[in-house]
Structures are given as structure tokens and as C-alpha cells.
């Protein structure tokens, strides 16, 4: 695109490659901030959506990869790369003030690779405890369990509250300082790690003024299982097993994404039948996930009956999964090249029975909860998220769409059988809690439409392409974006031509959602915090990976 070319012409110091709609820009770490500022604040085309930050250990050097995208032309992408040769005390300039999403991503990179981002006011580790030895995703990490035994006491409060910062003052001097997260007289309440409303083991430290929330500090890592590190020692088919367990509510979609990414690398032609089946399973998963999300939000607001209704109808989908895939929650269905086995003879009939049933039930949901005056009173006017803020936070999925940000990957980069389906991208403009609530039910409606169009047109033929016994990806970097139930889920695989990946990174849509919560909750009441959590509908194991 001309605008991008013009923009990149202003970066004479950078190495630029173009591959289709994706530009790769490599700069030295001194020029990173300048480049980032230029990309962000360009009036003609602002790369205002920071999809992800990936840390890399190249062996000699440590690197950071920024995935950027302009929200106006979402199908274009820009990969900004930088690296540092200093493995002892690696430091890279922070860009936290440009994109709201960057603050947490940088903490993640620091946690895994030890790269300090100068300027970021909060350089605590994100997932691991502050007293953890070593940086686990570095290639030279010592995995000896004796170095990091299972802790017997809770993390020290001081570690949670003191924010280490490295900044550079005007004279170029490095300043290391600690700032306090909360004031001494703040009334700080812990929500979590074990708390019924945190949707897993999220730990929210909240300072309150009466019932009003002053500040929210999310703590992660209570379910950090090190999936990315484990993936580096697993073959590609083995990795698939772990992806289901990331965001378990859209497990099949995650697995689909990983399969697509590997297939992209292998340049494997997947039979059309497999595409259709995968798409149908994805949409069923999305419905199941939204039903649970709807129910959990209702439960967070105190309506347990609505939750049970959501779970009841979700069981119908679980039945379909069980018959075809053999698993209820963990379908383990997609494999590289297609799907695990052909669909069950009952599959089409069951799905066709399900569609009118679900439509009927949606009406019931609206009767039970949407129209309820208390529910409306609770949701109206609370938790405003503007479109710009949503983009800056990277709050994809239904949350972003409720704020009017068109970010549906199914439309931007149609994958699998979505190009054959005619469906609308649900968009609302108000960005309030009610919009985030209602957009999920609307999306269920749209998913039913997709199912209706695809279910009768599943083409014949093989359900999976033949693959080699040992799958080796060619050298290079591969990335696949899909629309999971909660937002954009990306898989990034860096391969060195081995049967194991060199580095795998999953973009969690939920981490940005929790960040969103921390941004929009201050000023609301305690009850609203819980409700907002429900309306954002994050899944914690997806964040922690």
C-alpha cells in the first residue's frame, strides 16, 4: 500500500522486507522508540493496534518482536524486530506509553527472557514469583528443580507491591528505583486467587474507597504451566495436545489455529471437507463458550438460574462433540492436515436439530435476563470503553466489537470455510457493559446462521490430507490469526527446520481483557468490578499459558 511505503521511507536506518500484506521492519534497539513513535503517531495511517510482543532468544542475541497492525486496514501487518547482544543485562526502551497493551506484554517478556524495558514503570515479573531463579524461556535456562523448589509460603507482600523501574534521566544516567503500588492508608482487598468470581485463579488486588474502586492490580501466574517452553521440546502433533488446554472454552479453535499455522509452514493442501468440518466445530465451540460466558456473567450478577440454563444448553453441544470427537470438553479433533476422524453419521442431523432449539432458547434467555429490570439497571451506563481505548488495549473479540472496533479475523483474513459463509460481523458502538453482554448473544445468532449454511454443504472426499510420519517445518517464521471466542488468537511459530519448533508463542486474547478491566474498573463499585469481569469474559489459563 502506498501509505505504508511512504511511511517506511521515513525509516532509512531500518531493514524492510515485504511479504504480501506483511512488512517486516528490523531496527537496532537505539532506534526502536523512534520507529515505534513514528508508526504510532503517523496521521495518515497509524499502526494503533499492538497485537503482541514476542520475546526471542536467538542464541547469541535476545530479541523482541512487535506485531503491529493499523486498525483502519486490519489485514495489513507490520512486524517490528529489534535485538540486543547483551545477555547479562539486556535493556530495551519501553513503548508502554504508546500502546496501553504494551505494559503487560513487556512484563511478560521480562519474566521469560530477563529483558528490562527502560521507562516501564512496572517491571515486576508477570507470571513467576519475584524470587524465581532464571528466565525460563531462554535457551540456556537451567531447569534443575532444586533451583526452584515448590514454595511453601505465599509470595511476600513487598514483592507484590514494590514496582521496580529503570529509567534514564536527561543526562543519560540509569536510575533504578522502586515505586509503591498502593498508598499506605489504602484499603486493599484481594480478590482471588481462590474467589468465585475471578473465572479461574486470577488475583486482583483492589484498593477501595468505601465501595468505590480506586485501583486494580491484576496478578497472574497462579496457573502458569509453561506451555510455550514445553512446546519447544515437543513435536508439532504433540503441541496440539496442549493448545486445547489454553483457553479450554475455545479449545478447538486454538487447536485449529495451530494446525493452520503448521499447515501454512508445510504448504499442505487441506481437503475442503476438513475445512468445513473444522469450521462447524469452531462455531459450535463459539456458541458453547458464549453460553458459558453469558451464564457466568449472570451468575456474577447473582442470577444463578441463568447460569444453569446456559450450562443446560451447552450440554447439547457437548453431546455433539462427544459423538463425533470422543471428548466432551477437550475435543482434540483437528490434526495437522485435517481432522482426527470423519464425522459421526448423526452429526449433521444433530446439528440441524440444535439450531432451531438454540434459537428458541435464545428467546428464553432474553426473557429471563436481558429484559430483567434489575439486570438492565446494573448494566446500563457502566464500564465505558471507547473505541480508541479498546484498540490501544488490544481488546479484541466481542469486547472490541461492542466498542465499535471491527476486528473479526473471520472477516479480515477469512480462513477455513468462512469464505463460503455469509455472515455479519456484529458491531455495536456504545462500548458499555450491556453492549458486551448483548453482543455475545447476537454472535450466537450469527454462528447459528453460519452453521445453517455449512452443515448441508459439507463436501465429500477425504477428511484429512496425508502427512509424513515426522513433520518438519521448513526454516522460517509462521503466524496464523484466528478468531477465538474471546478475541484474536494468534499462533507464532519460529522454526529452524527441525521437528521441534524453536519458539512458539500464543497470543492470549484474555490477557488484554484483564488489562482492560484494570483500566475501566476504577470509579465503579465492587459489584461492578465483578460484573465487568463477567462481561469481559476472560479465561485465566489462557492468560497464564
Amino acid at each position, binding site marked *: 500500500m502506498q501509505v505504508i511505503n511512504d511511511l517506511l521511507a521515513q525509516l532509512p536506518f531500518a531493514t524492510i522486507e515485504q511479504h504480501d500484506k506483511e512488512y517486516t521492519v528490523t531496527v537496532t534497539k537505539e532506534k526502536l522508540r523512534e520507529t515505534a513513535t513514528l508508526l504510532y503517531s503517523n496521521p495518515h495511517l497509524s499502526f494503533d493496534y499492538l497485537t503482541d510482543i514476542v520475546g526471542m532468544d536467538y542464541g547469541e542475541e535476545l530479541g523482541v518482536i512487535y506485531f503491529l497492525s493499523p486498525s483502519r486496514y486490519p489485514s495489513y501487518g507490520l512486524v517490528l524486530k529489534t535485538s540486543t547482544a547483551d545477555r547479562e543485562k539486556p535493556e530495551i526502551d519501553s513503548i508502554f506509553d504508546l500502546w496501553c497493551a504494551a505494559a503487560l506484554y513487556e512484563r511478560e517478556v521480562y519474566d521469560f527472557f530477563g529483558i528490562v524495558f527502560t521507562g516501564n514503570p512496572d517491571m515486576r515479573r508477570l507470571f513467576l514469583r519475584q524470587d524465581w531463579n532464571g528466565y525460563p524461556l531462554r535457551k540456556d535456562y537451567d531447569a534443575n528443580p532444586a533451583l*526452584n523448589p*515448590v514454595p*511453601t509460603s*505465599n509470595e511476600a507482600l513487598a514483592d507484590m507491591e514494590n514496582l521496580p523501574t529503570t529509567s534514564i534521566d536527561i543526562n543519560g544516567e540509569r536510575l533504578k528505583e522502586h515505586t509503591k503500588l498502593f498508598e499506605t492508608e489504602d484499603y486493599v482487598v484481594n480478590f482471588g486467587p481462590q474467589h468465585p468470581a475471578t473465572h479461574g485463579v486470577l488475583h486482583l488486588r483492589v484498593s477501595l474507597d468505601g465501595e468505590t474502586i480506586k485501583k486494580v492490580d491484576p496478578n497472574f501466574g*497462579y496457573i502458569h*504451566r509453561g506451555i510455550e517452553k514445553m512446546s519447544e521440546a515437543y513435536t508439532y502433533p504433540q503441541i496440539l495436545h496442549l493448545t486445547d488446554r489454553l483457553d479450554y472454552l475455545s479449545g478447538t479453535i486454538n487447536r485449529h489455529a495451530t494446525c493452520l499455522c503448521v499447515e501454512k509452514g508445510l504448504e499442505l493442501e487441506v481437503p475442503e471437507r476438513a475445512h468445513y468440518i473444522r469450521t462447524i466445530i469452531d462455531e459450535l465451540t463459539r456458541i458453547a463458550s458464549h453460553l458459558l460466558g453469558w451464564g457466568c456473567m449472570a451468575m456474577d450478577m447473582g442470577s444463578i438460574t441463568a447460569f444453569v440454563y446456559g450450562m443446560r444448553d451447552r450440554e447439547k453441544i457437548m453431546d455433539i462433540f462427544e459423538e463425533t470427537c470422543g471428548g466432551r470438553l477437550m475435543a482434540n479433533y483437528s490434526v495437522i492436515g485435517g481432522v482426527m476422524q470423519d464425522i459421526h453419521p448423526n452429526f449433521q442431523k444433530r446439528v440441524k436439530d440444535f439450531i432451531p432449539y438454540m434459537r428458541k432458547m435464545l428467546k428464553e434467555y432474553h426473557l429471563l435476563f436481558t429484559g430483567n429490570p434489575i439486570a438492565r439497571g446494573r448494566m446500563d451506563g457502566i464500564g465505558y470503553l471507547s473505541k480508541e481505548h479498546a484498540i490501544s488495549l488490544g481488546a479484541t473479540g466481542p469486547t472490541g466489537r461492542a466498542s465499535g472496533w471491527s476486528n473479526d479475523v473471520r472477516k479480515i483474513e477469512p480462513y477455513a470455510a468462512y469464505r463460503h459463509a455469509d455472515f455479519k460481523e456484529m458491531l455495536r458502538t456504545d462500548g458499555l457493559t450491556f453492549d458486551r453482554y448483548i453482543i455475545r448473544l447476537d454472535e450466537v445468532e450469527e454462528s447459528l446462521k453460519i452453521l445453517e449454511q455449512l452443515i448441508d454443504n459439507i463436501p465429500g472426499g477425504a477428511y484429512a490430507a496425508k502427512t509424513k510420519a515426522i513433520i518438519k517445518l521448513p526454516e522460517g517464521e509462521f503466524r496464523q490469526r484466528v478468531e477465538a471466542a474471546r478475541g484474536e488468537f494468534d499462533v507464532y511459530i519460529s522454526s529452524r527446520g527441525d521437528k521441534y519448533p524453536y519458539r512458539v508463542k500464543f497470543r492470549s486474547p484474555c490477557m488484554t481483557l484483564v488489562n482492560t478491566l484494570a483500566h475501566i474498573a476504577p470509579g465503579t463499585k465492587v459489584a461492578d468490578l465483578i460484573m465487568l469481569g463477567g462481561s469481559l469474559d476472560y479465561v*485465566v489459563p489462557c492468560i497464564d499459558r
Partner: protein
Amino acid sequence: MEVKDIFVKNMKYEDFKENEYLESYVKELRENGVNIAVAKLDDLINWGRSNSVWPLTFATSCCGIEFMSLGAARYDFARFGWEVTRNSPRQADVVFCCGTIVHKMAPVLKRLYDQMAEPKYVMAFGSCAIGGGPFKKSYHTVMGVDKIIPVDVYIPGCPPRPDAMIYGMMQLARKIKMQEFFSLPKQPTVNAIEKGGDDASN
């Protein structure tokens, strides 16, 4: 009470597995002999305890969703009277360890267990809670909750089906029915974590 005499509605002795284990457990418990009057009272107490086990809402990952399914309309563990999920550990009787326990979570789980009032039970739900499961190779996973707290019933699966959980619940009920209120067996000392176990008790 013998294992054979334990009555679980609609389930025969033969329907259960692991009977030998329970037989040996009972034998160990009964070595000192029991007073008849006390035994009758024991039966009443155990009847109450085994039929009213209130779970703590504790779920770390995927298995938690199956736990929710168990509470919902299809499987409905309210039939057993287990649906009074308590959010405060002080009021709960059983922890369902649904999901992986990682290093950072381990002290939290231990503390939750310590906060519960006796008698308390633990069910390890899913392969992660049993022994690390698919995350056995990870640097941050605890290889089974029994490294931290004593476990009464293990329910395998990834995640286990809700039916499996109901079976596990009935096994726990049988185990409770064999206890003696008036002559409690010596509680096993928990060597929480091989190294630094002493710190845990402080």
C-alpha cells in the same frame, strides 16, 4: 462397619472398584475393636457426614468447567446433597482440586486446606491434580496435589467426565462411612514438600 455393609443407594458392592483397598483400610481401623453403642452413634454421625459434603468452589483450570457441568442441570450433584458449594473454606468439607496446581498456587492451596475445619476431605480431580498430567515436563507445575495436601480420592481423566466425578463422590462417601468418630485414627503427618516441609508447618 464392614465395607460390604455400607449402603450407597442404587450401587451394589460389586459395582465399585478398589474394594480391596478399602477392605484393608477398614481392617487397619478396626484393629482395636469397637464398642457396640459407640458404633451405632458412629453410624449416625457418618451417615450425616457422608450425605452432606459441601464442596469448596475451587477450580484452577479446565476441570473446573466439568465441575460446573456437574452442578448444572444434566448431572446435578444436588441429588446427593453436595450442591451447597461454599466459597469460604471455613464452611466447606471437601476441596475438589480441579486443575493443575503450579508453584505459585501451591502455598495458596495449602493455606486453603489449613483454613478448612475438620473433618475435611480432598479429591484430586483430573490428571494434573493427580500427577502433573500433560504438564509433567513443565518447570512450574507441582506433580500432583498429594505433594502438598493429603488426598482421599483420585479421579483420573483429562478432564474427567462428570459421571466419573459422581463415582468418585460415592467412593468418598463410602470412605467417610468407615470412619470412627470416637477413636479417630492417627492423622497422617503431611510432609508437605520434601524439602522445606518444616517451614510449611510454621
